[in-house]
């Protein structure tokens, strides 16, 4: 299945949801999104890291360095309280939007 284009603004929501389960590093986030979406969504690495750095500056994420599975130094991101509430708001907004868009597409 070919990779879908991510609509604008959804990458942050995906990152927030992916980190809801606990801290992950950048590679892990890509893998996880790809895996959960059954290879439908592939995050462009060129957009992932700028997004992570932006979200860290805005206080949605916090980061710490720790050993990876291969025992190398890796940067782990996790949700802050602000990130968590942003995830809730973003999720309900997304759901409402998709339901509405779906209704329009089916009903017309």
């Amino acid at each position, binding site marked *: 299945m070919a990779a879908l284009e991510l609509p604008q603004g959804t990458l942050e929501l995906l990152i927030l949801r992916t980190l809801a389960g606990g801290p992950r590093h950048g590679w892990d986030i890509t893998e996880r999104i790809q895996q959960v979406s059954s290879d439908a969504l592939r995050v462009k*690495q060129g957009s992932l890291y*700028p997004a992570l750095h932006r979200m860290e500056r805005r206080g949605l994420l916090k980061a710490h*360095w720790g050993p*990876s599975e291969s025992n190398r130094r890796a940067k782990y991101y996790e949700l802050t309280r602000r990130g968590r509430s942003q995830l809730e708001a973003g999720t309900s907004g997304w759901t409402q939007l998709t339901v509405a868009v779906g209704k329009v597409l089916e009903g017309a």
Partner: protein
Amino acid sequence: MRRRRERDLEDELRFHLDRAAHETGSHRAAEAVFGGLETIKEDCRAERRTRFAGAWSDLRLGARLLRRAPGFTLAVVLLLALAIGANTAVFSSLDATLHLPLPFHDPGRIVAVVSADTHGRPQAYNPLWSGQFADIRAATPSLAVFAGWSYSDANLSAAHMAVHVQVLHVTRDFFDVWGVAPAVGRTFQRGDGDREIILSGALWRNRLNSARLLGQNVQLNGESYTVIGIMPPEFASNNGLFGPDVWVPLKLTPEQLGAYDRATAATLQAAGRLRPGAMLAQVQAEIAAVQRRDAAAHPSYRTGRAAAITLRQELDLGENASVLMWLQAVAGLLLLMGCLSIAGLLLERGLARAPEMRTRLALGAPRRRLIRQLLTETLLLGLLAFGTGIGMSCPLLRLMNAMLAQGFPVRAGMNMRLLAFGAGTALVTVLLAGLAPAWQVSLARPGGLMARRLRGALIASEIVLATVCLIATATLIAAIHKEAHEPLGFAPNGLVAASVTLAGPAYADPARRAAFLSGLLAAAARLPGVEQTALVSPPALTWDQPAVQAQDRASGTGTQAPPLKVLAITSGYFQAMDIPRLAGRSFASTDATRALPVAIVSRTAAQRLFPGGANPIGRYLRILRPGEPPGWRQVVGEVADMSFYVGEQLSARGNVYEPLAQALPPSGIGLLLRGPGNANNQSALRAAVAQLDPSLPLFNYRPLADDIAASFGGDRQLGDLLFGMDLLVLFSAALGLYGIVGYAAARRRRELAIRVALGETRAGAVRQLAQASLGLAGAGLSFGLGLAWLDSFVLANIFENLPTRSPAVFCAPVALLLAVVLAATILPALRATRLPPAAVLKEL
């Protein structure tokens, strides 16, 4: 810190890359997926940067650029710093004048009531007639207290010391106006006796050696007074309102309290304190009502106009605030010129950077971002200039203080108001100077027609400003210079003057007076090194101006002459002063009390009294003063005119002299001594006077040249300050022009090199470069001349006695400016064309 952040970024991305390589098995594929590590790094850095960090990097970039152009930076910082320094220095002086602390309780509630001129403009320290004072006091319920006072001088004997004192005669509620309690004792109370006296702290401490005097009797002009209080020293500080040594109760007769005319009324200065809740406007309305009533009740005589102003307003009116305002205006102009110069420099510099800007715009840099960066650079310049300017304002202040030792009250020193003023000035300047160039540079096509027009306008307006400023100040400087070289009509060098006051019951006896005065003259003549002596009343370089009438030859009636200064003198006066005799004779000892009354007139007085160029000798005049005998005086001599101070106008001159023996017995007597080496006679003279009368102090012993210098001091200082400002203005114009033309020349080096290589002469190349700037400067000069011409009429309105628009005053500044313009345009052009063309072409 920054390095660690970079390493972390590298590690993080490298980790991802390695994992990707591991998964896909190929490093090359991972690179491709990743798509340019550096681009991602830059994006991450951009995301991390806050708005503040952007400003910080702008600032660092700006600092680097400024360091790389030290000449430009130095020129701009110096220009701005000069302007800021000058403005801050003048402002501090103005600030000190306007915020002079007043040693009174709640000084904002104190209202001064002064007489006004015919236009109703209040005149600081101008007194009211006593009748006017009484009427106003009776009809101003908004004033809780309304007190009046008048001045005199007297001899005070206390604790075996005799001192000359300034006396303030005050109404009993006087001290309630100021709300200041005495340091010891009490102030005057209603119903007390008249023979009470209050001493100033300064007099008591410095001249009466802090003697135990409270409750004691002292002698004032030979009459006994009881000391009831001593005021704190700061109360009588010399702020224009007071400066007296003692206060005594004012005595006014009922006639004086009803009088509005020169013959019977006393003159009083007056001030009151507002009742709680009352406003100044209420007092003004009440006074206006009094004046309307008086005008209706006494249509026969002219009622004086009065005006109520706050004490602060009165002090400001009386101080040199207007002169300082003038200086501040010149300083402001200097700042404006600095602005223009810097705008020009920035514009040129921006044009030189146009390719860089165009590239950045093409690469997608938002215009806002470019403007921000340029403004940041300008701001940085402003910050540097502010620091330097504040640093420079201190020496400038000291310089001003040194020059203004006796002129304006300048309290040097930094305060918040001053720093805020300096910072505000710097900020406004850089924003004004930086905005236009920044906007211009960020246009889609920087360096186009718009930029050339802007530059032209900048150069021309700078020259216009400089022209107007230089001509205006040259007019004032010329006026001051002329004043300084006006002949005085007498020779102050080698003259020493001193005063005594003959007052009190003891000197009511004419024989006693005459004995004392002849004793004084004889004692003075015996002093070593004294060649000529004379007495004059009023004392040297002060005058009395009673009405003088000339007798009409045919009818024998009197015609009033314009104001003339009347002096009573002894026979040696003209010799001592070195005033040439023009006709007739001088006074002699035979012009005694009972002899034929005589007078001598000066040249101008003769023309005023006896117009038509007739010989005044043998004509008659009379002096009208209360108590003066009604007879006519015969004119026996004519002498040259003299000025009493530097800059005295011809219209103010004209003296009438009478023999001291035939004058109404005056109290103030001046002694004049001329001779080599008589500067050390003060103590000998004091001793001689003490021998004649131990209760009579000699005072005000000083070389007469000091009085002349003091009368000119303020003007000379103003002249010097204006001259200093002019130099700054010229320097600013030169620096600005030089910078603008120099930058333009540097930018066109390649074009010039090609021209020269193709056979253009150097002179031709220089002409090419200088032509446009010189044309603009010429336009600026002519426009400036026109403005200065108009301005001279404004100046003539503000400053009296300005010389008429003389060619020199217009030509000299223009010539100077032209020289500066030529040098500032041709020098950089010459420099730019001196380089060998081949080298320039290769370098580019």
